[in-house]
């Protein structure tokens, strides 16, 4: 896909999104309410309308090839970059999905191991070492110092014996 094509796709997507936002804002009154001033939908509705207007401007520039991206016939994302960025983004999505199931302390070591060993091609000792150390530091820092409990999913019960050690 060329940059020019990507620019069109993004502009069209954002046009649809703007219209959706206007429709969604109109669920609340967008006009004047006596004694209360503008209704709750007033602010987002008109902002979404301006978004729609600017999408029109972006599309106009696209037709006229006025901006650098609208005229560029270069590849939007090269194959190699797509592979790298896609792997990273994909592994992040899987990690967050795993947060729901096996929790932060199940998912983070897997993510770190994947990134260090398979993306970074580091040795096993370093990869395993960091995959254990970082979640431990995270636990000590967030759960013990800041008292922010992180999602644990099915591993919740495994932590019951650990808490009394600190509190």
């Amino acid at each position, binding site marked *: 896909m060329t940059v020019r094509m*990507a620019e069109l796709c993004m502009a069209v997507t954002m046009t649809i999104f703007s219209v959706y936002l206007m429709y969604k804002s109109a669920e609340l009154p967008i006009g004047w309410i006596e004694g209360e001033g503008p209704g709750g939908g007033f602010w987002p509705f008109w902002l979404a309308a*301006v978004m729609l207007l600017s999408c029109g401007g*972006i599309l106009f520039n696209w037709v006229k090839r006025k901006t650098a991206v609208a005229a560029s016939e270069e590849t939007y*994302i090269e194959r190699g970059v797509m592979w*790298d960025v896609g792997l990273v983004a994909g592994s992040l999505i899987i990690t967050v999905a795993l947060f729901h199931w096996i929790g932060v302390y199940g998912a983070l070591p897997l993510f770190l191991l994947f*990134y260090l060993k398979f993306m970074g091609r580091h040795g096993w000792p370093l990869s395993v070492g960091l995959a254990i150390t970082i979640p431990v530091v995270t636990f000590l820092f967030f759960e013990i110092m800041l008292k922010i409990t992180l999602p644990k999913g099915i591993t919740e019960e495994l932590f019951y014996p650990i808490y009394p050690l600190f509190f």
Partner: protein
Amino acid sequence: MMEIISLLAGGFAVAFEPLNLMLVIIGCTLGLFIGAMPGLGSVNGVAILLPLTFLVPPTGAIIFLAAIYYGAMYGGAISSIMLGIPGASTAVATTFDGRPLAKQGMADKALTAAAVASFVGGTISVLLFTFFAPPLAHVALVFGAPEEFALMLLAFATFVGLGGDDIWKTIFSICIGLVLSAVGLDIISGEPRLIFADITGFMHGINFLVLAIGIYGIGEMLWTVEENHKAGGRSMLSEATVTVKRTIANLRELLGAWKAMAMGSFLGYFVGILPAAGATPGSLMAYGIAKQISKEPDKFGEGAIDGVAAPEAANNAASTGSMLPMLTLGIPGSPTTAILLGGMVIWGLEPGPLLFTQHADFVWGLIASLYVANFFAVVINVAFIPVFIAVLKMPFTILAPIIFVLCLIGGYAPTKDLHDVWLMIIFGIVGYLMRKLDYPLAPAVLAIVLGPLAEPALRQSLLIGDGSFNIFFSRPYSASIMTAALVLMFLPVFKLIYDKMKKKPQAAEG
């Protein structure tokens, strides 16, 4: 005058409390490292680490973040000089002459120049800040809802007027940020609003950190993954030797650059005050002017010491400058201060003129800690130069997963809802794709912070004015700010007409 000095003395007492002093030192060090990492700047550091500050009292928290901000300004120069990759956009101008110096084996000279210039810029700007802030806060005391809204419009107008060549994308970015900030409960009627697909997670609104970490954490890292791929996974380093004798010689040579440093400091400070302008344009302008006032403009680009000193003084001065409107008016001058402002709201401090009377401790503690941070940043910077060089050799594939882990947890911590982590990932990926198409994203982050302040200001103004927009033009302060905002907003249109008129005669000739 005496009053300011006594308040400042009280501020120093706050800044020298052991906890705050420790936070300044840790903040400066962290900031230096974050600033030195290619791709990460003060915005990223402040956005990613803000959730960690809920542990300490608000004064300590802002001191910590301000120290990170300062440290990052020093640190940005390090990778600009050593790797030729700007550590942050604010340090782009530093590469022009810093990199050639490093290639000639004089990296230590460039690094020393950057550190000293940063110190000069920081000191001059903090002095200006100390004496400008109270009067400005005083004027702001008479501000009502219409003035507040006019000011916010001015902040957005500067983005449109000064922002890059694609005005439509800037406007789009501002509006989408404002709409995202409207998600949740309507502040006035209390009704649920913009609850997409009836997902309950939207009921508590979209925290600005979710967007900020999404864009500046996840999005920025994806961008760096791409850059790293293109660079073949290895960034080039340069050699530098550091000896006492060389350092003294370097410092002596720096004395000759005082003009560039002083000019950079004042220019940076005033550019920094302007909303939306900030440290990046400030440092680029300083570089340009330093070249024009220099006796040897030909040496610029080939390793002129003035070319390193001017932008470095300017970016530090601008970072202080951008805090002035944030504290006195509640209008952030840069994306980083927008995030600081969001943090202050979370800590229960309403930024604006009343802050100076109601939370004098906080304000003067912050100002005093800027002096302290400035001192420690220069000391730590010079002492750590060899360490930075070693850390920068650490492969990106080790740094990246650690930063990702911080982002994921940082997105979860403020609301303790995995829904927000999902949103953050979506914002990160969409932000990366948009950035590749030249959509400016800083306006969106500024907008999501200002949105919850701008909407009530507008609705209250309209209520006072009985539904008429005349209210904005019938009060002297708001009318003048409004006019300035409109002029700035239509600046690109005027320019377009002017360019067309200039072109026409030529076309007629052809």
